[in-house]
């Protein structure tokens, strides 16, 4: 099908990574309550922890340039093993889409539309994402550059606006938290925003010019995103200080206080629209990868007919996944990071190792064949 080999340029790939990571960071309420005013350190630790992780992804992509993650599994673990591993991934992609949808529903419900039920917001949004996925990957990633430029501009404006109420003593005391909370924070940030880059292994085959090396773009996108998240968190800590752990939407509250030239005082709607744009972007990428994964899993030609039933399933799944918001936060802070870590770090690592071993065996077998042939 024509859509299958929709090519996206390397820069679009890089900037879609930036937006992908930034969108989950805007709801960075997870680790604020754990590490309070040292949250910006967590971002640094998370970046350091994720560099080897990225190296694994890039190595995998280079190993099998035009194979998506699911096809790599089939190749590395053989038919049955590959299928089992792929089921994990497919379930992981579907759950990520649903969790992000719930985040969006929760955010819109909390900030803009208090009375509209969550499901309505989610079902409208999933229709929008389904429509964009119907047109294929090309459409979604085309806007990544524009979105990034707009978002950085708005971020800078928001920093300027809140500059006069920033108080830089809020960052102190540094390093006075129990060590456990630092580990917990780093664990969360390296699985929720940064670890989700495993999704991009599904998109890597569609990138033009990947022979020239995807590493430059993978790392570039990652570091830009890490820098932007750092800025967001620095701004929130400086403005809110010790009120951080009370608020469930820190960035939103911080912007509510921002006053620009006295008259334009409520720029949090700007933040809300920006978040909706980002989450649209992230959810349609996730939705695209989950359907692509299913279509590669069953080796069917085109994924388009699957879009409608999959979106219906996701809407229903998002209702049943958690009863309420509190459960959502406790589980995703408590145990989810471990399971995500298993899927995002350990599985790709094993795949890489197995593929190296296989190559070594083949080389040995090959050389022995030459030896016997010669």
């Amino acid at each position, binding site marked *: 099908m024509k859509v299958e080999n929709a090519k996206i340029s390397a820069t679009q790939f890089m900037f879609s990574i930036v937006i992908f990571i930034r969108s989950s960071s805007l709801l960075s309420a997870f680790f604020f309550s754990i590490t309070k005013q040292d949250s910006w350190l967590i971002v640094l630790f998370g970046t350091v922890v994720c560099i080897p992780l990225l190296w694994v992804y890039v190595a995998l992509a280079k190993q099998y340039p035009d194979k998506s993650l699911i096809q790599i599994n089939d190749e590395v673990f053989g038919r049955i093993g590959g299928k089992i591993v792929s089921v994990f991934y497919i379930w992981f992609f579907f759950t990520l889409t649903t969790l992000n949808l719930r985040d969006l529903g929760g955010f819109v419900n909390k900030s*803009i539309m*208090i009375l*509209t039920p969550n499901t*309505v917001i989610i079902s*409208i949004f999933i229709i929008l994402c389904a429509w964009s996925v119907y047109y294929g990957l090309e459409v979604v990633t085309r806007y990544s550059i524009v979105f990034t430029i707009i978002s950085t501009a708005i971020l800078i404006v928001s920093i300027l606006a809140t500059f006069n109420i920033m108080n830089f*003593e809020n960052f102190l005391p540094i390093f006075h938290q129990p060590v456990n909370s630092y580990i917990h924070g780093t664990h969360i940030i390296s699985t929720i925003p940064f670890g989700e880059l495993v999704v991009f292994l599904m998109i890597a085959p569609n990138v033009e010019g990947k022979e020239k090396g995807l590493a430059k773009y993978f790392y570039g996108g990652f570091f830009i995103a890490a820098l932007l998240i750092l800025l967001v968190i620095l701004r929130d800590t400086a403005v809110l200080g010790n*009120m951080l752990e009370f608020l469930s939407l820190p960035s939103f509250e911080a912007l509510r*206080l921002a*006053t620009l030239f006295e008259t334009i005082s409520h720029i949090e709607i700007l933040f809300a629209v920006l978040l909706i744009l980002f989450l649209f972007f992230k959810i349609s990428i996730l939705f695209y990868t989950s359907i692509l994964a299913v279509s590669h899993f069953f080796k069917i030609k085109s994924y388009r007919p699957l879009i409608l039933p999959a979106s219906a399933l996701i809407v229903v799944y998002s209702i049943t996944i958690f009863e309420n918001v509190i459960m959502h936060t406790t589980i995703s802070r408590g145990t989810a990071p471990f399971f995500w870590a298993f899927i995002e770090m350990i599985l790709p690592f094993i795949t890489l190792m197995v593929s190296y071993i296989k190559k070594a065996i083949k080389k040995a077998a090959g050389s022995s064949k030459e030896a016997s042939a010669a």
Partner: protein
Amino acid sequence: MKQISRLFILASVIAAILFSSGCYDIRELDRVSIVTGLAVDKAEQPGNIELTIQIGKAGALGGGENVGAPDEKPVQLIDAVGESVMVALESLRNDNSRILFFQHNQVLIIGEDQARTGIIPYLDTFMRNKESRFEVWVLVSEGNAKDVLETEMELDEVSAVGIAKMIKNHTETSKSLGVRLLDFLSKITERSASAVAPIIKIIKEEDIHRLSLSGLAVFKKGQMTGKLTEDQSIGFSWVMGDLKGGNLSVETEKGSAQLAVMSSSSKLKPVFNKDRLQKMKADITGKFIIAELTGFKNMKIEQVIDLLKKGAADSIKKLVMDCYKKSQQLKSDIYGFGSYIYKYHAGRWKTIEKDWDAVFSNLALEVDIKVDIQDTGKTGKSPEMEGIR
């Protein structure tokens, strides 16, 4: 035709979802009453609070030519009694035709007697409610907060908006210190758990009542422990280092002067000897411009400036020490020394934290002040000084 009919079905599905589930959050402006001011007072029955809400009547306030009858009061006051803010609000709802809309609330005024008994439980609703905003100004009223909301201001129809403007102007000239809900809450929940809020009182002259801001109310762990006078609150601002305006009167034996404060800054430094907190050192620098000179008969301007520098330093010290004594009396560390020590010397803070009140109440404060008089205004010499025959 097949393709078009398929498209049509999809479109109808989307439209159906849209319309059937839309219009949840609609709030037409004419079915909403806009809350501009909130007052919390102690009710007669013990344990209850009296909540007064000031609502701006759009009809009377709207610009353009369709302003209502001239004598119609632009503001409507409704009040209710309940154990907590939410209970009071609920009782308000059933007898009010319109939905209460808190997004535009300007001012939260707490009655003095309610402040003395404690306000923490009531502040929680304001933090949690989606509609409440953190940049609301917090005020303490002498007497009942209800009367403050009732008094009319000549310039602004809606008195709450007027009060907000007054606070903004006063903070700029730092006659008094405007405190937003966010600062108030963060100070109260901080290590030193004490905060300040400006006091507003009604001055009754014959028939017209005027509102005026004077002094600061001191809070410790959510309870009001005392009041600071005008001068004491200026002393407080000197130590906090955010004095931006107002003027300082200086008396010397040769003459007196008024110095306009251009800017001020202060650095706090705890001094330890063998991890026992010995004293707090605050070095304050102030930049002034001479606003008024009287006396200093036939002296040179340089001599006058030296004299003034010494005089200014002494008067600031007097103000600061006077306010510090009062805060020690009230046992509330409004300067945030506790949280300062926690931030910069977290290790030592653990030891002091337990009996911080005792430590604070007899902690010595050493102040050294650097005065910098930048300019003498338009004229160098005053008429009485040397050179005038």
